[in-house]
């Protein structure tokens, strides 16, 4: 069954060797190792062709280019778009310069980002929140006025909150690659660039809702879910329906026995595996619309995964010292499975699956 396999290349990341197919990016190779070796990614999105290279969050140091040419690369490189070479040696969380730069990137992304997490729908499943928690500083050096944008209406389903945008371009690639016609894009230049539509046209397309899922922050949110809940009070389950437009495979989010939101399914790197249509996303908000498969394996980047933000569980890097020093640990013994069972009908749902980050019992 196994025919000719391409010659695998060996690459060492943070001292761990991994074999991958030629053409794999450093980031994908690091994800193969997993855990803390995988650099953070704010703009790169594996299902979207051409994404990446913009946020600079995933910059790593290449200590040796390849076995043939072991010279180090002069600058840090964006791991999401740099292919590995045989014998390449990469330093990610073991390199001080990489971590310092990453800290700077968090700072850059946050200077104009409104710190309105308490009222932001994305809170709890926000890539920027996680990135800032893992790599950012506890203080800010920015004293200037933050950049703001006027609110624009882009249709009945999607709320655009441009002030929160970090210009990852994911939604632009999504519209290009998933929908039939892209009607939105980036206008303006520099820190005045904004995601907008041509003369504020409504984004109206069967698959437009996917821009919500790919958005790493709360710049694009679901109007049907807006201000209804906090993500850590919800309980996601995998479900499907017979949909003529898309695969119909979704994650349905419950609060109690009420469906309050439907999203596409995401993998452990917070990337959508199969894009879904707007009918599934916005209009099927009854349990009877869905065939429930079981609880969703909770992503490591979600606060629904218990203890996500416990200082002692954050993987070691020098940020941790700072976080530990300023963080008063509250011993929270609550069991998330209990939380889930209390909210949902007990028979239908198994307890939340243990997560890789959970401490050993």
């Amino acid at each position, binding site marked *: 069954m196994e025919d000719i396999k391409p010659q695998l290349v060996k690459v060492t990341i943070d001292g761990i060797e991994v074999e991958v197919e030629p053409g794999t990016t450093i980031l994908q190779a690091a994800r193969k190792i997993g855990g803390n070796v995988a650099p953070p990614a704010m703009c790169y999105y594996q299902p979207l062709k051409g994404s990446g290279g913009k946020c600079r969050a995933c910059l790593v140091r290449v200590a040796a280019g390849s076995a043939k040419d072991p010279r180090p690369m002069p600058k840090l490189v964006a791991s999401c778009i740099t292919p590995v070479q045989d014998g390449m040696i990469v330093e990610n969380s073991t390199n001080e310069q990489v971590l310092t730069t990453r800290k*700077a990137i968090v700072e*850059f992304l946050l*200077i104009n980002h409104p710190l309105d997490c308490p009222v932001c729908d994305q809170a709890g499943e926000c890539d920027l929140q996680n990135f800032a928690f893992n790599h950012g500083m506890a203080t800010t050096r920015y004293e200037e006025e933050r950049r703001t944008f006027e609110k624009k209406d882009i249709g009945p389903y999607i709320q655009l909150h441009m002030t929160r945008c970090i210009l990852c371009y994911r939604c632009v690639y999504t519209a290009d690659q998933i929908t039939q016609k892209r009607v939105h894009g980036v206008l303006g230049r520099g820190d005045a660039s904004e995601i907008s539509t041509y003369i504020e046209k409504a984004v109206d397309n069967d698959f437009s809702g996917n821009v919500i899922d790919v958005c790493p922050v709360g710049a694009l949110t679901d109007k049907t879910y807006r201000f209804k809940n906090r993500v850590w009070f919800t309980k996601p389950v995998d479900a499907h329906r017979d949909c003529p437009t898309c695969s119909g495979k979704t994650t349905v989010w419950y609060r109690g026995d009420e469906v309050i939101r439907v999203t596409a399914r995401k993998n452990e790197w917070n990337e959508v595996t199969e894009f879904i249509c707007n009918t599934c996303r916005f209009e099927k908000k009854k349990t009877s619309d869905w065939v429930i498969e079981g609880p969703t394996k909770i992503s490591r980047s979600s606060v629904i995964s218990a203890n996500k933000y416990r200082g002692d569980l954050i993987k070691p890097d020098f940020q941790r010292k700072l976080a530990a020093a300023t963080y008063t640990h509250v011993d929270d013994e609550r069991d998330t499975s209990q939380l889930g069972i209390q909210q949902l009908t007990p028979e239908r749902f198994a307890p939340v699956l243990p997560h890789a980050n959970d401490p050993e019992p």
Partner: protein
Amino acid sequence: MGKKILLEHINVPGIETYDVYRKQGGYTAVEKAIKTMSPEGVVEEVKKAGVRGRGGAGFPMGMKWSFLAKPEGVPRYLVCNADESEPGTFKDHYLMKNIPHLLIEGMIVSSYALGANKSFIYVRGELMYVIRILEKAIAEAKAAGFLGKNILGSGYDLELIVHPGGGAYICGEETALLESLEGKRGNPRNKPPFPAVKGLYQCPTVVNNVESIATAAWIINNGGDAYAAIGIGRSSGTKLISASGHIKKPGVYEIELGVPVEEFLYSDEWCGGIRDGHHLKALVAGGSSVPILPANLITKLANGEPRLMTYESLSDGGFQTGTMLGSGGFIVFDETACVVRNTWNFSRFYHHESCGQCSPCREGTGWMEKVLHRIEHGHGSMHDIDLLVDVAKKIEGNTICPLGDAAAWPVASAIRHFRDEFEWHITHPAEATQPGAVFKGEMALV
């Protein structure tokens, strides 16, 4: 004195027309190259000449040409970068406006060398009248049989297209230029792949500066070795310098590389010295993005030897005591110029021109501008200075394209060499915000 290659016939009346240009020996390089030389032979001559890219980075042009991928059945392109927008640089504008045929002759020779049948000149959008001059010149060259199908009966075809830019500094970055030429938003691409492999429309492409391409005609007529004999070492040939600021004779000058900075600045042949009654305070040698140097460091190297107008000599001492030749935008400041205000001005430019694609540049340029604005207007605090240094350091080298570096270097260098002036602005806000107020502290005026 000094050999003129590009501006030799600049003062001939009517040189912008085909007839006069032809009478002055124009288009002989095209005849020589197409009739007697192979494309590889042309590349070889340019390599021998050792001419380095005149757009700012100084990468050897012949080497760039030899990197061009040549897959079968795929067109190759030559794109001329005429999007000159760096503050303080105006040489390409001058060249195209006055001797358009020199660029066109260079384009034909270079396109022939690279095997390109369609070449583009991407001109800064603000220069519409230059675009018209170029289009007229192209029509003349075509009528004379130097462009179009079957040039000089050789079977080689070349179409030359002038494309106006949309008015963005960033489109002078080669990959942003290619995106813009393709009709897209001018965002720089991630590299690799480099344009030599995947450039315009994903085909192998060479992007060269106007001045670089214009040298090709002379190199073919006189040979690469003759070109390499001019100048010093790896800085061969001549360079157009756009001189501006507080000097007696601002303008575009062609110099042989290797002229001492001091001579260029004070000789009556060139800048003619600082305006009467004033002294040199600081100098930006290669366009707004290169580090600014104080008077004592620009004329002499750290070891006391005179600094020369070459790539190597200007960058001697690294960024601690050196700078770069860059695009040759020679901006001179006398003691009436405020370094803080100037740095803010440059910073404002880069903030305005950042494409906004990658986070360090998008956010960092705006941040630096705001902090500099604050210091200039008397609201700064001491830790702002270190903050600026740190932000500049975090931008530098971490961006997709060199605009991030270009934004960081002027700020970092101004603080490195003129820190006392920044401090004075912070400690004496009332004085510093007076119109025309300039720090009068200790500084080495020459």
